[in-house]
């Protein structure tokens, strides 16, 4: 177990800067998830922590020791790859004991550690088989077993669940979380799936285009996003963004509807253009609310998702952009084409600066 300190780290490939000065403090035992869209630099950052990529600027320290120039094998880390990276010519037991055999560890100790890891992950009956004989989920567990056996200071996971089907992913998510609660090893986990981030992390780092947009606990990021990117990335279905301007004690949308701000009007902003953000689950039926036509009703069993188009929408602009998503817990008899009146909960609404994206 150890802390990981990332200070002002930069990474360039030739003239192109991929990571533009990133700083993260990871406490001992924390489960930190790097999340962001493809190409944001999260995998590159993880590989720099592992030592598989050179660091162009800044420092990375594991347990207060700067590791910039240390090769991966000396950093006392273990990594789980997206494609499992199991040695195809070795049995599962040999795969898991490879690192220990390289260090000439005593055979009895190797056997004990492999057995312990196999117990935790339910791999006992598979130890004599080869990777090609295993399913995707089993292979991923072996990859994790290989990491556990090492008993390292830090676990690094590089999108380990991306190659699994949806059901298996949900199951493995729970297993990984349980494993972390049991072993308490510092973990850095990379994913593009914000649901994984929300369900597993102690702390989430949202990355975008090589910079950090926000760091915080999952519910913090959900309730108080610092900018439009984080607000739109975290939470599914995504937050609704309604452009318009602040006026009086409320908000006027571009199509003329009035939305409440609940008295939380920022100072000196009358008439100022802004973006009103409201999550799909924070709408309710209201006679005084915005009129909108139902476009699609999507019942998922536990809830109903509806796509609505505000009636005041100007002609000529892209219809899709004007559409709002509303998520209800109850079943509804609403049909496409019907008009409903909805209003957001003012206490849970957000205001953003349309130019910078930052919250107001």
């Amino acid at each position, binding site marked *: 177990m150890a802390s990981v300190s990332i200070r002002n780290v930069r990474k360039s490939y030739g003239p192109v800067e991929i990571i533009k000065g990133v700083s993260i403090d990871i406490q001992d035992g924390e489960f930190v998830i790097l999340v962001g869209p493809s190409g944001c630099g999260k995998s590159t950052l993880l590989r720099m922590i592992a030592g*598989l990529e050179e660091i162009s600027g800044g420092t990375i320290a594991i347990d207060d020791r700067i590791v910039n120039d240390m*090769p991966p094998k000396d950093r006392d880390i*273990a990594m789980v790859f997206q494609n499992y*990276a199991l*040695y195809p010519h070795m049995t599962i037991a040999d795969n898991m004991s490879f690192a220990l055999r390289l260090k000439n560890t005593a055979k009895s100790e190797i056997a004990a550690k492999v057995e312990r890891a196999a117990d935790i992950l339910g791999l006992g009956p598979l130890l004599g088989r080869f990777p090609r004989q295993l399913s995707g989920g089993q292979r991923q567990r072996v990859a994790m077993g290989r990491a556990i056996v090492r008993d390292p200071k830090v676990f690094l996971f590089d999108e380990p669940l991306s190659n699994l089907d949806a059901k298996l992913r949900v199951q493995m998510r729970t297993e990984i979380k349980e494993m972390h609660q049991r072993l308490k090893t510092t973990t850095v986990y990379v994913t593009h799936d914000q649901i994984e981030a929300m369900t597993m992390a102690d702390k989430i780092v949202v990355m975008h285009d090589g910079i950090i947009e926000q760091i915080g606990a999952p519910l913090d990021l959900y309730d108080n996003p610092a900018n439009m990117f984080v607000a739109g990335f975290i939470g599914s279905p995504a937050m609704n963004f309604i452009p318009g301007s602040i006026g009086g004690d409320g908000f006027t949308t571009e199509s003329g509807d009035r939305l409440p701000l609940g008295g939380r009007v920022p100072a000196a902003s009358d008439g100022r253009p802004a973006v009103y953000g409201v999550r799909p689950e924070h709408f309710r039926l209201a006679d005084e609310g915005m009129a909108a036509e139902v476009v699609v009703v999507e019942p998922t069993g536990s809830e109903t998702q509806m796509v609505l188009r505000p009636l005041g929408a100007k002609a000529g602009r892209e219809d899709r952009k004007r559409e709002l998503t509303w998520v209800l817990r109850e079943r509804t008899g609403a049909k496409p084409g019907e008009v409903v009146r909805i209003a957001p909960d003012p206490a849970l609404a957000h205001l953003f600066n349309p130019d910078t994206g930052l919250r107001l």
Partner: protein
Amino acid sequence: MSRPLRKLLDKAGMAVCVLLLVSPALLFFIWMLSLSLKFEIDNGAYPPILIPDRFAWKNYTTIFEGNSFLLYFWNSLIVTGAATLFALLVGVPAGYGIARMRAHKSAVVIMIARMTPGLSFLIPLFLLFQWLGLLGTLWPQIIIHLVVTVPIVIWIMIGYFETTPMELEEAAMVDGATRWQIFAKVALPIAKPGIVVAFILSVIFSWNNFVFGIVLASRETRTLPVAVYNMLSFEQVSWGPLAAAALVVTLPVLILTVAAQRQIVAGLTAGAVKGG
């Protein structure tokens, strides 16, 4: 036209094309076989006889008596075996290094070495061997065969290592392996099919080599292809024994190729398509 009939015609057309393409090589072998089993009289007969009435098995037996055939077979074995072994010892790590370091320029240099006609090395190397006093031994042939075998091995191994997923080696790096350990314990076992292909192709090209042997071999050190050539005497061309000898020399490599054809194709096309 009905579908079954169409399918049949397609298959027939395919068979005709294959036959046309394959027949020159095939017919050549069949004629050689026929020649090797005929007595001298039958050779000049017109119309040509394909299957003679009496089989001249003595054509085959004369190869093995009095002609030191087994000595030449042994020479071929040593030369090809040693050249292939050295090529693998040097070429496999070289291919690994070039593939991992993306040293494309080195790969091009080796390609040029492969394409240069062997004859251009022959004279300088002959003088060198003469000066070193090696001419009576098999060493000159072994060394010059390396010019043929090493580039083959390197080229095939470069292609093969370039398709080995880097993630496996990265996993080994994180697990604590040094470069040599990664090569020996991870890359090499996975590249076994590639090594088999390199071995086979190296054997094939080295065994059949004729040009180097003609210049560098003495009476005791000549290899099989050269021995067959020497069976052509000035007075008359004894086609029967000659054809028999040629067939016997070709046989080992032919069997090897037919047995390993799938591996050869796999090795040559490795990495061409994702997942292959």
